[in-house]
């Protein structure tokens, strides 16, 4: 297989042309996105450079505690991003979300790197951190969708939920449709991704491996594992988090705590 072609700094700067296209589009059509595009560009470059140096250090250190520490920081950051997307002030959901993400993503990453890929030791950072990163990145979006949907529907359908409670339903029965709708909304993007993979798009990880010189037949095997892993971890985390948050929407007397906004 070919050796990877290195991108020099001038070549990297050439890629900024795409950002200029986006900036020009925003300017011409008065989209008001110029500031966001600039901030996004700066963050992409600085965060990825930082990550590059950090990963070089972590891969060299070969320390399980350092690998796990990085994993915890990644999950912690993901919760902050979810918190930014979900505009809910009345019910707190951050701690259960953090703990669920931490445990379910750890189990998924462990299962994949240790049992499926068969890495020795299981915490080998070159495998464990990218695997965990993909799980966290995908499931984080799914979680944000599910949590947002749960809160918004609970508020919108407040009268229907209370009507069911008044007719003898427990809180689970009164909010069953809202719960399933929220979990489905979170899971559909990763199921759709399974439908389109290899047909509509080539996933980032597989493209990366091919660009780095890997055999496409090996790259697809990794991608299949990744696709299955993402569906599984998304299902696990959205269901657990949505179940916990739904309970928090109701008080001790199974009364709906969310007030109209």
């Amino acid at each position, binding site marked *: 297989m070919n050796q990877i072609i290195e991108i020099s700094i001038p070549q990297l700067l050439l890629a900024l042309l795409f950002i200029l296209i986006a900036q020009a589009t925003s300017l011409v059509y008065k989209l008001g996105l110029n500031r966001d595009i600039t901030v996004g560009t700066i963050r992409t470059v600085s965060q990825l450079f930082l990550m590059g140096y950090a990963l070089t250090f972590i891969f060299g250190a070969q320390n399980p505690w350092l690998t796990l520490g990085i994993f915890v920081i990644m999950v912690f950051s993901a919760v902050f991003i979810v918190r930014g997307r979900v505009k809910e002030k009345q019910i707190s959901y951050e701690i259960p979300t953090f703990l669920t993400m931490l445990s379910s993503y750890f189990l998924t990453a462990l299962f994949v790197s240790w049992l499926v890929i068969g890495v020795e030791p299981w915490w080998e950072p070159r495998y464990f951190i990218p695997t965990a990163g993909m799980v966290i990145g995908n499931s984080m979006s799914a979680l944000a969708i599910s949590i947002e949907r749960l809160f918004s529907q609970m508020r919108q359908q407040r009268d229907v939920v209370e009507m069911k409670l*008044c007719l003898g339903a427990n809180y689970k029965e009164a909010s069953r449709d809202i719960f399933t709708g929220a979990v489905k909304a979170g899971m559909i993007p990763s199921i759709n991704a399974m439908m389109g993979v290899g047909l509509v798009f080539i996933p980032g990880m597989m493209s990366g491996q091919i660009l780095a010189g890997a055999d496409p037949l090996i790259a697809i095997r990794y991608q299949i594992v990744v696709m299955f892993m993402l569906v599984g971890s998304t299902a696990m985390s959205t269901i657990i988090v949505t179940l916990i948050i739904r309970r928090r929407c109701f008080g001790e007397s199974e009364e709906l705590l969310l007030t109209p906004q």
Partner: protein
Amino acid sequence: MTKLLELRDLSFGYDKGSPPLFEHLSLDVSTGEFIVIRGPSGSGKSTLLRLICRLNTPRTGAILFKGRNTAEIPPPELRSKVTYVPQIPQMTEGTIRDNLLLPFSFVRGRQRTAPDDVTLERMLEAFYLLGVGLDQSAMKLSVGQKQRLSIMRAILIGPDMLLLDEPTSALDAESASMVFSIVERLNSEEDKTVLTVTHSDYQPAVPQARSCIFRNGTLECAHESDH
């Protein structure tokens, strides 16, 4: 008459720091009574009904149902016995039959036998819903019809007491009189205890009626001997 419901020194406020909506509120309701609570909007009438079926929680005080503290009764059991009918009737997507049998799909409701079509049709007639088919969409009914249907649905789960929150506020005079006629019949013929709040000048035509006024956080009721 035996005491069915006792409100003991209740106080309630929406937010922790805010002043209470009412304090030291007490009321005894006997089996078979028909109580009408009147008062200006925002006085706390609806909140009182919501506290009784624990859709809201009182800051202090206790509510006893048949001598048991309602905080110790499983909520589905309490709400099946003391059933709250909201001001705006709520229906789910589906037929009238689906809506009427909705409570029987819940764990609590499955302990009772669901009524058959003949029983439901007979009840529809008694609730002035003659000509309304069980297979008809519930969403297409008028507000007045929905209100009667929601009271009928509440009755199907066999409550001891009905809590009616402004049951006629969204209805025209004819629909309103139908609703009150149904409720009075349920009280006098089926011995259902009724607690209704309203800002209308409705006077129930039943001998066991009692009138209360909710004003400035206090509840003043006419004495039993006054009627």
